[in-house]
Every structure is written in C-alpha cells, then in structure tokens.
C-alpha cells in the first residue's frame, strides 16, 4: 500500500470552551454541548440530554486503504423529541474517524426511508452502499428509546437490531454504543467509541484533571489545583482514578472515586510518590517511591497498605506498567546507561531488558490484549510514539511530533492516544497501530497533556 492510496479526510469541529469556575473535587458538567446551540430552543429536553461541550477540536487525517461505504440515516423521531436528533451525526463521526468507513452523503437524496420496509435497495446499491443504518428515537416517560436497524444492502437483510432505553443524559453514549456495534459487525473487531479518556489541562497556572468521552465531549473535572497534576491512571473497572498531585509541594499518589468523589492518599512517603499503575485485578498499584535515593518501583494495595519493594537498584526505575496477565511489571530504567524498558516479575526478582532498538525508550504501556507494547522513543532528539509487536518483536515508530509522550491504548487495542505539541501548545493525538489513521484533539483554552484511555464502558441497563 502506498501513501497515494490513502484517502485523506479532514474534519474540523471548532467549539469555544465556556468559562466556568471549577473547584477541587467538583464533579460537574463544565460545558454546554455545542449541539444545544444547533438544535434550537424548542428542544429543551435535549439540551439537558447533552450537557457537555466538546472542549476539544478534532482533526482526522489518513484512512484505511479499504473503507467500507455505509449510509447512516437521520433517526425518525416521535414524542417530545420531535426534531433535531443528531444521533446519526455522532455515529457517522465515530465511524469516519476510525478510518475504516466512508460515510455516504445522503443530504441531496429526495426521500429517505423511515423503516426497513421502505428501503429501495437499488437506490443504495447504486450509491455503492454496503451498509445502511436507520432508526427511531421516541420519548418514553423521561427516557429516550432508541431503536436502530443496520441493513446489509447487498443481501437485503438486517445485520443489527438494537434498542436502548436510556436517560437523556446518555444520548451521546448511546450513539457511541451503536457505532461500536456497527464497527464490530463490519470489521470483525470491537469498537472503542463508547469509552472515556482522562487528561490534564493547564490553563494559566491552573491544572485540572478531566475525564471526557473519547471524542472530547462530556468533559468533567475531577480535580482542579494550582499545583501540577500528572500521571492519571484508570482503575480497570473505570470507577477510580489514580494520579499524582503536587498540592503538598511534593508528588503524592492519590486514588479518587469518580462517582463519590472520595479521595485518598495511597502513597505519601518521604520523598517522591509517583507513576501509579493499576494491577489488572484492581487490587493493587505499582508506584514509584524514592525515600532518600533514586526512583524505585513498589507495589501497594489500593487502600494504601501492604507496601512491597519490586526493584532494588541504584539506577532510575520508573514508569511501571502491569502486563495484562498481572504477572510482570514493565518499566523504564537507566540501569544499563541509557533509559530502556525492562520487565520484572510483579513480586520482584531479576529484571530483563525488553527494548534493544534505539538508545532511549521509556513510558511502556500494554495493549489490553497483551499483543503490543507502546512506548516513547527518543529518535535523534525527537520523542516519538513507537509500538512493538510482542509476538514478532517488530518495532514501528508511529508518531510524527518531536515531544510526544504518554501513550496509551484504546480498549480495542487498535488506537493509541498520546500527548503532542502543535504550535507550542500541548494537544492530544491518536494514531492507529498500523499508523494509517491519525486524529488530533486540542483545546482552545490551554495546554492539554497526560492522556490516559479508560476501559470500555458497560452498556446502560
């Protein structure tokens, strides 16, 4: 495949971040969804339905050589939710942004079907559509009932029939869930649209730890502080966040519940406390402590008890990451002179070296399926995201920036999110493991860094 074969899609959504004061531990919606401005005043319900604004600007480039053509039709609506549904737009953006789909433009077509029975398949085969999604949104009591059918245009059969009844606040979440189902049906791999990310923003001298949908919508502030916040790490069940806060003039590891706001100092020992990484079962964390010497790796229970030292060296050992089976901890160390990635049994022992190409490799993170390791390589003075196939040992440098850092995998292991700098400003970017599809997410207001892609979210019951 050559570059000339790649389609290039550039989408830019620009929104303005609303100013809003947030305080420590508030867990409120900080933004108004831009959709609420485009939907119009008649749809008060859906303004509440989508209470977050896209704080991030999304730019997509590249694409898979083979893209699946699909039509995502606007949803029919009934009840109070009588117009302005943008579900199909959210679904379309998800699929288009994956680089795996080409969304067929239906805006010029005279009459669109409202049900499977109304579909004239010859119209859609003429447009070369392989898939066709249509559906309905009804207001049922205080909830939205979303019904979607996805048709195989060639076989004229239903591939998917989905129904979700959710509170209006889960409007975007439902769209992402539908997109995940469509993605999996056509590509054979799970999607990662109904997921969340965490990241740190710095605006002026104010640091905030935020979580948002993977596309930057529904941003909420977990912590706001005048001192730095780094290294957010999702608990495996997505209910808690570990992070490092300098609010007491030194790095201390906190664990905070997303839903109750309960906040606990898990590691506050003499010296530094940093680099939290959860064990896959969520029972403990790897952390980096210093006491009076260099950074070393320890494990500690999630409640702050049962501290155990894992590495014992006079070198720097930091940036631990559990392997998905929980048996090993991978980490950065300069024990061999230059920083490289090593692995050690989670219970301690003698480490062995993992990276051999390049003179500087740090920040290891696993793909959830355990097949890949992503890390940062210093390549002639430029810090870039690399991915190593742990089966074959093949290494590929994926990113194009010069100060890229903090890579983490999407739950479906297809995409890596990382921090980069564009025009002197910190932004987030994603790249697929094959390097073909790139997205950038930047915030209008300030610097954004330290992204961490959270686990898949459960479907609403």
């Amino acid at each position: 495949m050559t570059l000339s074969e790649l389609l290039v899609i550039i989408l830019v959504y620009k929104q303005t971040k609303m100013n809003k004061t947030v305080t420590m531990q508030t867990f409120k919606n900080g933004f108004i969804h831009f959709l609420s401005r485009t939907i119009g005043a008649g749809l008060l319900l859906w303004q509440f339905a989508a209470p977050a604004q896209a704080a991030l600007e999304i730019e997509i480039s590249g694409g898979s050589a083979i893209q699946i053509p699909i039509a995502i039709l606007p949803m029919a609506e009934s009840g109070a939710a009588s117009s302005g549904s943008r579900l199909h737009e959210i679904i379309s953006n998800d699929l288009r942004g994956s680089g795996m789909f080409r969304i067929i433009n239906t805006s010029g077509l005279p009459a669109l079907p409202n049900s499977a029975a109304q579909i004239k398949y010859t119209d859609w085969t003429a447009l070369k559509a392989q898939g066709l999604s249509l559906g309905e949104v009804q207001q049922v009591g205080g909830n939205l009932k979303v019904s979607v059918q996805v048709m195989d245009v060639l076989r004229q059969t239903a591939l998917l029939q989905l129904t979700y009844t959710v509170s209006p606040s889960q409007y975007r979440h439902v769209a992402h869930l539908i997109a995940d189902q469509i993605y999996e049906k056509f590509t054979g791999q799970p999607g990662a649209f109904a997921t969340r990310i965490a990241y740190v923003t710095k605006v002026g001298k104010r640091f905030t730890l935020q979580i948002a949908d993977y596309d930057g919508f529904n941003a909420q502030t977990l912590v706001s502080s005048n001192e730095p916040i780094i290294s957010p790490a999702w608990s495996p069940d997505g209910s808690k966040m570990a992070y490092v806060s300098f609010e007491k003039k030194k790095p201390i590891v906190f664990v905070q519940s997303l839903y109750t706001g309960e906040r606990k100092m898990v590691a506050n020992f003499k010296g530094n406390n940093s680099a939290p990484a959860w064990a896959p079962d969520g029972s403990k964390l790897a952390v980096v402590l210093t006491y009076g010497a260099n950074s070393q790796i320890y494990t500690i229970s999630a409640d702050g008890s049962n501290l155990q030292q894992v590495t014992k060296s006079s070198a720097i050992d930091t940036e631990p990451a559990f392997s998905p089976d929980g048996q090993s901890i991978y980490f950065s160390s300069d024990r061999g002179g230059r920083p490289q990635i090593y692995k050690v049994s989670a219970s301690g022992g003698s480490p062995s070296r993992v990276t051999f190409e390049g003179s500087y490799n740090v920040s290891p993170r696993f793909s959830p399926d355990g097949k890949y390791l992503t890390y940062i390589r210093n390549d002639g003075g430029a810090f870039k995201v690399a991915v190593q196939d742990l089966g074959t040992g093949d290494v590929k440098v994926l990113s194009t920036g010069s100060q890229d850092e903090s890579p983490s995998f999407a739950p479906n292991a297809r995409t890596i999110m990382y921090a980069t700098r564009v025009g002197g400003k910190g932004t987030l970017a994603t790249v697929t493991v094959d390097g073909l599809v790139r997205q950038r997410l930047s915030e209008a207001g300030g610097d954004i860094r330290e992204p961490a892609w959270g686990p898949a979210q459960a479907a609403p019951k």
Partner: protein
Amino acid sequence: MNKSIWTVAALALVLTACKSTPMNPAKVEDSSVTRPVAKSQSNTGADSSASTDKINIKTVDVDTSKDELSAAELAKRQVFFDYDSDAIREEYKGLVANHAKYLAAHPQTKVVLQGNTDERGTHEYNLALGQRRSVAVKNALNVLGVSDSQIETVSYGEERSKQNCADDGCFQQDRRVDIVYAGQ
C-alpha cells in the same frame, strides 16, 4: 519560640526571597535583613513592615551562637546542572558547602531539596531525573556533616519548567535543585 519571632521573620524574609523562583536581589540586599542572623529579640521598624507581608511565616528555632555565615551567602539556593547530568558543578560547590555548614550547625533545621528538569522527555522520567539531582545535592550535604533526618529529597521533574524554550540558555534555568528551608 514566640520570643524570637522577629528574628525569625528577618531570616524567613531572606529565605523566602528565592523560594522557587529566581531570587529577588532587592530583598537580599536590604540592609535590615542581610545581617548574620542574631538571636535578638529586638524589633526594628523595617522588620515590622516586612512581617506584615508574610503572614504565613513559621517559627524556626535558630541557634546563632556558632553562626559564621551571612544571610547573603545562605540566600543563594539554586544549584544548576548540565544537560542529562546530576554532577554538581565546581562553581556550586561553595554554595552547597555554605548550606552544609549552616545545617550542620543547626541540626533542628530541615530542608527540602527540590529537583527540576527542563521540559524535554516524559513527565515521569523527568521526575526521576530531577530526583537524581536532588539526591546529588543531598549526598554532598551528607559528606559535609548534614544528617539525613534534616533532608527530604523530592522532585518536581519538568512540572515547573519554562515551556517552548528555544535555546539551552532557557533550558538551563530549569535544570536545577532548589534548596527550600522548612517553613518557607
């Protein structure tokens, strides 16, 4: 402790002069606060006006009987490093020795050594590099007789670095250890 509050205020003002930012020479050269610290309960008008700006001053028990260092010597609190290095440069050895002498003579006084790096590299790895610098200063203090119990080494890594530096003169200012006295 209250008896020595004004003395301490004078000391604290000097010490605060370069807490985590480049020090303010004007304060350091203020004659009312650059005298060698003396255990005096006298309260001068100059100190009084200064103290009203510093409501968070904490009392430090200072025994000045053996004190031979001027406050100006102790006011220098920043040790700068070469790129990718934790070696204390020749020109900072005197500075470190001054603090060692003071701390050895005042075993109740505590310092935090805050390591810093420039912004190049990852946040956590830079945290570890900054720590290595703070440990280098600690080791130098230890050799000169300062007890471990008086020292905490921490790192800010790149978190206080200038951003978008264009040359090494800019990066250089971030590669340092700040010596911060307890209560400052």
